């Protein structure tokens, strides 16, 4: 039993999300249109998140493959907007929705999408849709 304990160090933590090795800072927001000020077209179906999770699942990555393929054609810019369901503390909901949007942006960067072509925003449940989704708007 004691001999097996050192091997525990290599086991992944069950409670924590996997952290990215490199985090890319956001570029200037000039020229990006907010979904509040005009109807924007989503680049793919909304990504739904369960509970307070902010890590991407296999289903999310499958959906995002559409965006990666779309980007390689004419290199558009995307606004990644996070939303959350009511019932959470307001400020936590804003931060959580922003964090989810950042997780999507991080995955798209790692998949080859140019970091400067993406902006994130977290609305919590201050704006519709008031559900736990991330919507990628093509600019």
């Amino acid at each position, binding site marked *: 039993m004691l001999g097996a304990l050192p091997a525990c160090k290599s086991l992944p933590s069950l409670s*924590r999300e996997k952290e990215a090795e490199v985090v890319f800072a956001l570029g200037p927001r000039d020229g990006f249109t*907010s979904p509040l000020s005009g109807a924007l077209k989503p680049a793919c179906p909304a990504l739904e998140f369960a509970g*307070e999770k902010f*890590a991407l699942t296999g289903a999310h990555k499958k959906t995002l493959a559409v965006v990666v393929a779309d980007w390689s054609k004419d290199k558009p810019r995307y606004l990644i907007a996070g939303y959350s369901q009511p019932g959470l*503390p307001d400020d936590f909901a804003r931060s959580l929705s922003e964090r989810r949007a950042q997780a999507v*942006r991080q995955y798209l960067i790692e998949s080859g999408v140019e970091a400067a072509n993406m*902006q*994130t925003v*977290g609305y919590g449940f201050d704006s519709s849709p008031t559900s736990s989704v991330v919507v990628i708007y093509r600019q």
Partner: protein
Amino acid sequence: MSVLRLFIFLSLSTALVPCAQSVTLPAWLRLLKPMSRAGAPRAALKRVSVSDFTGGTGESALRGLVKELTQAREFTLTSESPDFTISGSSVGGRVTGRVVNREGEKLLDRTYAAPGLDENLKAFADDLIFAVTGKPGLATSRIAFVSDKSGTKQVYLCDPDGKDLQQVTHHTYGCVSPSLNADGSAVAYTSYKTGFPVVQVLDLGLGWERTVSDTPGSSFGSAFSPDGNRLAVVMSFLGNPEIFVIDLTTNSAACISDTTGVPGSPSWHPDGKQVIFSDDRGDGPRLYVTEVSETNEAEAKRIRWRTGYGFCADPEFSPEADSVAFTARIGSELAVVVKGWPNGSSRVIQSGGAAHPSWSPNGRYLCYTQHGTLYVQNLYTGQKQAILNGHGQITEPRWMK
């Protein structure tokens, strides 16, 4: 040897537990014990006498002042052997008030010349409460909150009794997450006026609005420092949300958190040297406290503050820094909890969907929202009062400190 130490420890523990239990009061006697936030019995109230006010509006001033002081419940109003005596005069709404102690020493002698009698009386009531008790009064304090009554979320202000309601923002896409500075002269909030969340400060006296943070990503969760010169905010331009402190005098910002999680709702310690915030690092939002370094070179200490709850947000230090109020999730519903700082027991103040607690300046009351209604609860008596109901969905109340 270690077995012997363990045996001694266990023996002492079992010997001490009955002693600790023996001083616990029976349930019926606990009701007689004065309820106190810190657990200590309350000091006897000072005896204060209000004598006649001279002048044309003296009689109205006297009535108004007695009403203010009765509502404040900071001391006993009596003419029998008073510790302090209040006197004054009022002409044309102006109020001159004096406070003299038992030895005849003058503690306060001030004239209030604001346009309205009520405004002057409130200012005098707060000053004399501070002169007698050393704690701030609530008559002139304000509560900022968010309401969707106008169709979009906007920031409003009201008195602690829900009166003198005032809408302070009118942005097209709304404003949320307000924070009042210490003297109530400015309010910081997150504005969606550009379609993106930016932090702005509105000077309530002059009416000008200033954008403090318009960085890529989101900016939200502003909280004024006790001296009013700094603002703790969440910004995400680095690629993940982090807590920053913005110096409003120099427009410089410093990151005080170190997380790849979900930080939010920063709030200042009354000494202005620490900030408490929630952070979800993958296992639910917990509370963390970080020092705010005065220089760039100094290394800031960060600790996780264990509350016993797996979901905590919206923390706020009490004015005396002996407790922290926060929103916890108990079962599937939110609840307001107060826990002693840095160590102490937790007390559920209100469950059933109560959220976003904020302390009154004197630390005796908490305001919070529950199902869209704004409540103020006396922490000594447990008495709860809905001060604003039917004014849209009210969220994020923040009491001026």
